[in-house]
């Protein structure tokens, strides 16, 4: 309250900015001088693109199985243990919801039963802040997006999957538009519109964009019509690589663009779709929308047996119980 704290905070901000600018100037000079100790990563950092990442931090998280590299635009590259690399990025988007009077198919609102975006490309959520936390057991990349969304990308020591922990919500509806938030895993895998989902919870089923195996298909809604239920797993692959995403709950998923997997995370709507619920999917508590927290695990190994095990390990996670031990003599 004596104003000292605010002064210190302001000074801290000034020193942070100064550090960032000085570092960049130094590196530019070093580049001009062709300073030999600059590595490829440092040279890349000298590009003129603005970066939101703290220049002083290490931009890698890694374990024995893989290494994730944080790019300027927050793209991540996976280096696998077999020396293969896979371009890989995690991005958050939202689909804005359709609104109609529900009198016919074209006038139907997006609701709890059906998902109907009113746009053909989702709106990307911009990144507000990003930081890396390193440690002996886990390293995390924490990213805060606009619209009350955060994601934590983790790599644990001796564990062969990437864990993505997300918190979404309350979804802002100040603009009176319902929204469906999605997460996209973008890779350079050439899957040619083919992806696999375990919609019945028993086996992986092959899906092809804009196609059904039993009949000729003309989709009036190419976005919603290509979404499928994901019980535990969705994956895309080509001859070299595979990217599998394991979900901790049933979610909707698709691969609308080559090399991408997108999965629905949270929905908040203002209108009903007249299929029976009778109310908009707008869950609130204390006048605020709900927040959703969940986890997804990403596997990059092309092994059905390993994936099946990891799916069950994720689905039947160890049961953790706590007991007070203040008065417990363990001697």
């Amino acid at each position, binding site marked *: 309250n004596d104003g*000292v*704290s605010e002064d*210190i905070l302001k000074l*801290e901000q000034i*020193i942070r900015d100064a*550090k960032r600018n000085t570092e960049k100037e*130094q590196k530019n*000079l*070093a580049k001009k*001088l062709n*300073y*030999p*100790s600059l590595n490829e990563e440092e040279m890349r950092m000298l590009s003129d693109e603005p970066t939101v990442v703290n220049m002083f931090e290490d931009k890698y998280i890694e374990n024995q199985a893989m290494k994730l590299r944080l790019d300027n635009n927050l793209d991540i590259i996976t280096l696998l243990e077999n020396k293969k690399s896979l371009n890989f990025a995690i991005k958050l988007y939202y689909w804005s919801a359709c609104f109609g009077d529900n009198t016919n198919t074209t006038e139907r609102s997006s609701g*709890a*039963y059906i998902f109907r975006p009113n746009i053909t490309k989702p709106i990307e959520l911009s990144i507000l802040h990003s930081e890396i*936390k390193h*440690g*002996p*057991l*886990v390293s*995390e990349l*924490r990213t*805060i997006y606009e619209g009350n*969304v*955060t994601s*934590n990308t983790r790599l*644990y*020591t*001796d*564990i062969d999957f990437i864990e993505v922990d997300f*918190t979404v919500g*309350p979804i802002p509806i100040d603009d009176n538009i319902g929204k469906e938030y999605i997460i996209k895993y973008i890779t350079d895998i050439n899957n040619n519109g083919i992806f696999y989902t375990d919609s019945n919870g028993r086996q992986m089923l092959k899906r092809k964009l804009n196609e059904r195996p039993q009949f000729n298909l003309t989709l009036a809604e190419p976005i919603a019509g290509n979404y499928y239920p994901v019980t535990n797993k969705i994956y895309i692959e080509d001859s070299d690589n595979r990217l599998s995403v394991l979900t901790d709950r*049933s979610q909707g998923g698709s691969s609308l663009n080559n090399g991408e997997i997108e999965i629905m995370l949270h929905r908040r709507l203002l209108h009903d779709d007249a*299929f*029976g*619920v*009778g*109310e908009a*999917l707008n*869950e609130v*508590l204390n006048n*605020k929308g*709900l*927040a959703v*927290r969940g986890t997804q695990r990403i596997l990059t190994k092309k092994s059905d047996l390993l994936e099946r*095990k990891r799916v069950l*390990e994720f689905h*039947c996670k*160890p*049961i*953790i*119980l*706590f*007991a*007070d*031990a*203040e*008065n*417990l*003599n363990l001697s």
Partner: protein
Amino acid sequence: QFVIDELKSAMGVMQHHDAITGTEKQHVAHDYERILNNALEDVMIVPNQAYNKVLKAKGYEGPELEYKRCRLNESSCSISERKKAFTVTIFNPLAWSVTEPIRIPVVDGSYTIKGPNAKEIQYQILDIPESVKNIPTRQSLATHELIFIVKLKPLSFQSYHVTKNEKTKRNIKTQKERKNDFYTNLNDYWTNLKTPIDIKNLEDKENRRIQDTICNENLEIKDRNLDFDVLKSS
């Protein structure tokens, strides 16, 4: 058996298509939550009895422990964030060995975790992200998460004993201390800051080092050739 049946019954209700897909009305969703939560709370009597039975079989003679489940999905746990010592019992329901990261919500500090055989294990402590702390429904004192990795055998459980260490120094600094720290850091920073001249000097030094290395390598090659000539002639 009665409480297990109650949970089975609740799980039966949850097979309804609206419960699975989330297309129920809001008040029905709340009712589903109530049914499921009550059944889960009641069934806790089963693991409580089971674990205490196993503890006694292993020779434990103290009072019965009361096991509780926690809302780890929102990083909150009344026991781990309030008690100075607690046990964490982890059961692997699968028929094969698993390696799993465990995250326990706690208050910031230093901890000692002893695993099976009373051996101290490695842990990491990380702050809980603000987005999780701000979840509207969350009621918790926890500010950090205690992370450790467990390796569990098939269908087995392990107990870990966690103790909060006594504070050795104050975590909360006074305004004056903070101010002093800040100016010390500032001073260090400007002292260690590299100017363009420093960089040029470094570059010269590096170039000299490279030249020296090349020179040394040439000498070594010459020596080797000489050895080879001697060998050939002999």
